[in-house]
């Protein structure tokens, strides 16, 4: 009894200095965690750079523009992979942005209340499907369908148009840059749609209601109120989707055809940076081969870094503006 009383009496004092120490320890622990992330990113950049150095030293800037990729003669260039990465991502954006936009507008503005929840949940579930599933679906279901029914039409019709015809000619393989772009587009839709939906929901109802009040149609409300209000966020969200499309590996590897040659037609096989890495890294022998692959990785790191920085920049500006308006 006596001892417990003592302990009780001592307790607040003890808790005081122990608490202070614990607090300090905790603060520093969390700080270390945060710094660790920065350090890891820095370490990644440094090690990528060191690994890529032999390739950059040997090929110089021509590494970026050379379309040669020959492991036998050890002559490497990144252009085919960079081209494939950018082209598939652009196709993905051309498909993904309008569709995600439609989904987000439907959910926030037009959807009956009872349907809102199921549709939103379904989209979030789609975003959770592992990318390899998209790849397998693309290879076994989409590519055959695309080769048998869509591509012949594309090369017969679009292929005849002067100038852009070159982009749409070639035998219907079902596998190639266009297929990869479409699969990527489908993959980024759920991701961007949920970002857009969240964005559109931050538009103050007062603004929309006022617009409806003066007789605006739904389309006018979206065009004149919702879009201008969320413009910057939409750009940011698109960039986030683009970042995902740029780095996607497995799904692309399945359907792009993995050919390290430069082809003018989108129906022909190509390669992206990430699928080159996934395919070739394990068997890469010799310093120059490995180093060139690491250099590809560094280029991808750089591209995604820039894209995500732009996205962050726009999103930060949006939140700042939100603060001033409301």
């Amino acid at each position, binding site marked *: 009894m006596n001892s417990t009383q003592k302990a009780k009496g001592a307790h607040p004092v003890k808790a005081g200095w122990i608490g202070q120490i614990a607090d300090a320890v905790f603060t520093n622990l969390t700080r270390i965690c945060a710094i660790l992330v920065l350090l890891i990113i820095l370490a990644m950049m440094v090690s990528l750079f060191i690994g890529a150095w032999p390739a950059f030293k040997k090929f110089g800037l021509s590494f970026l523009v050379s379309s040669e990729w020959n492991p*036998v003669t050890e002559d490497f260039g990144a252009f085919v992979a960079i081209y494939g990465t950018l082209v598939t991502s652009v196709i993905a954006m051309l498909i993904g942005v309008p569709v995600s936009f439609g989904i987000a507008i439907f959910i926030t503005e037009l959807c009956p209340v009872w349907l809102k929840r199921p549709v939103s949940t379904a989209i979030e579930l789609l975003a959770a499907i592992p990318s390899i599933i998209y790849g397998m679906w693309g290879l076994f279901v989409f590519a055959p369908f695309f080769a048998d029914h869509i591509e012949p039409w594309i090369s017969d019709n679009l292929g005849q148009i002067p100038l852009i015809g070159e982009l749409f000619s070639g035998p219907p393989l079902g596998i*190639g840059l266009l297929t990869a772009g479409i699969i990527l587009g489908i993959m980024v839709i759920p991701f961007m749609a949920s970002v857009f939906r969240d964005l559109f929901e931050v538009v103050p109802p007062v603004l929309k209601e006022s617009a409806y009040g003066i007789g605006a149609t739904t389309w006018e409300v979206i065009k004149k109120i919702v879009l201008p209000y969320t413009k910057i966020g939409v750009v940011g969200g698109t960039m986030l989707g683009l970042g995902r499309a740029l780095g996607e590996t497995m799904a692309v*590897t399945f359907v792009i055809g*993995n*050919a390290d040659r430069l082809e003018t037609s989108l129906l022909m096989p190509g390669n992206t940076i990430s699928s080159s890495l996934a395919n070739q890294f394990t068997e890469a*022998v010799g310093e120059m081969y490995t180093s060139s692959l690491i250099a590809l990785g560094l280029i991808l790191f750089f591209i995604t870094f820039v894209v995500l920085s732009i996205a962050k920049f726009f999103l930060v500006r949006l939140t700042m503006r939100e603060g001033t308006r409301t």
Partner: protein
Amino acid sequence: MRLKLFSIMCFLFLSLLTARPFIVQAEGVKAISGAGATFPYPVYAKWAAAYYKLTGIKMNYQSIGSGGGIKQIKAGTVDFGASDAPLKPSDLNNAGLMQFPMIMGGVVPVVNLRGIKPGQIRLSNELMADIYLGKVKKWNDKRIADENPGLGLPARNIIVVHRADGSGTTWIFTNYLSKVSKAWKEKVGCAKAVAWPAGIGGKGNEGVASYVRRLPGSIGYVEYAYALQNKLTYIKLKNRAGSFVAPESKTFQAAAANADWEHSEGFYVVLTDQPGKDSWPITGASFILMHKVQKKPGTARAVLKFFDWCYRNGKKMAEELGYVPMPGKVITLVEEAWKSQIKDSSGQPVWP
């Protein structure tokens, strides 16, 4: 009370941690590990499962590809490495490694042409090279028709399928093409990954197999077991002796019989384009790599015991999967090499 419980748990945990190695040491080597070639993976896995049942020793094999296997054995993270392409004797000496052949098999060109059954279509070696060079573009090309009189060939484009990843299978295939075609040797060459002049790339044997099954008019090359399992349409090849042969155990064995294992330093033998009228031209052996000086002789002995068991008792399992087991004469040679080349740090032979 809680503190007591915690300290007991801590003690238990620690004692578990420290006790484990003792148990393992007391009972001898419980697990051996290897990494490398994907080509022999099916048969290694089958052998390992059977061996585990028999002895309780587990063999962990990571089929990460020959290049990865070579890297890992050099780094010493595995007990043995596996490679489909033999290392040159000079490379072996530089790395302090020795190699021996474990299993042989064939690489098989397969096609997807409607109405054509396995073995019906015949190609010469030069045609194979020209198809992969992108020079022959249509199935009804006159040169293909000349080899196949009476066979109705469609006017389809030939879609060339190759491996997208670096691979020992590709090494064997391009080695064959380099031997039979001067143009291929000069333009492309032989390696685990090459700059393909034409076609699309699939990842792994299964990737190539699924592309070929998918695309009408395609031609690809896979390891024999995959052609067998997927019931793909294989082709007959005209070999060096000028006769057409189908890919099967008999023709792989005929090619393998030519190999002069006895007089090849470091077992450096390539089995492509062998003479003999029954020889399948794209045959290859898969190799095991081990360090010449073993820091853990106990583990090395366990590894060699496993391979010895495979040589002697694994023949039927290998044949079931479409591989060619090593002939008895070669096994004797290999085991002699174990005796003379693999030593522990004091210079004592590890085997037997």
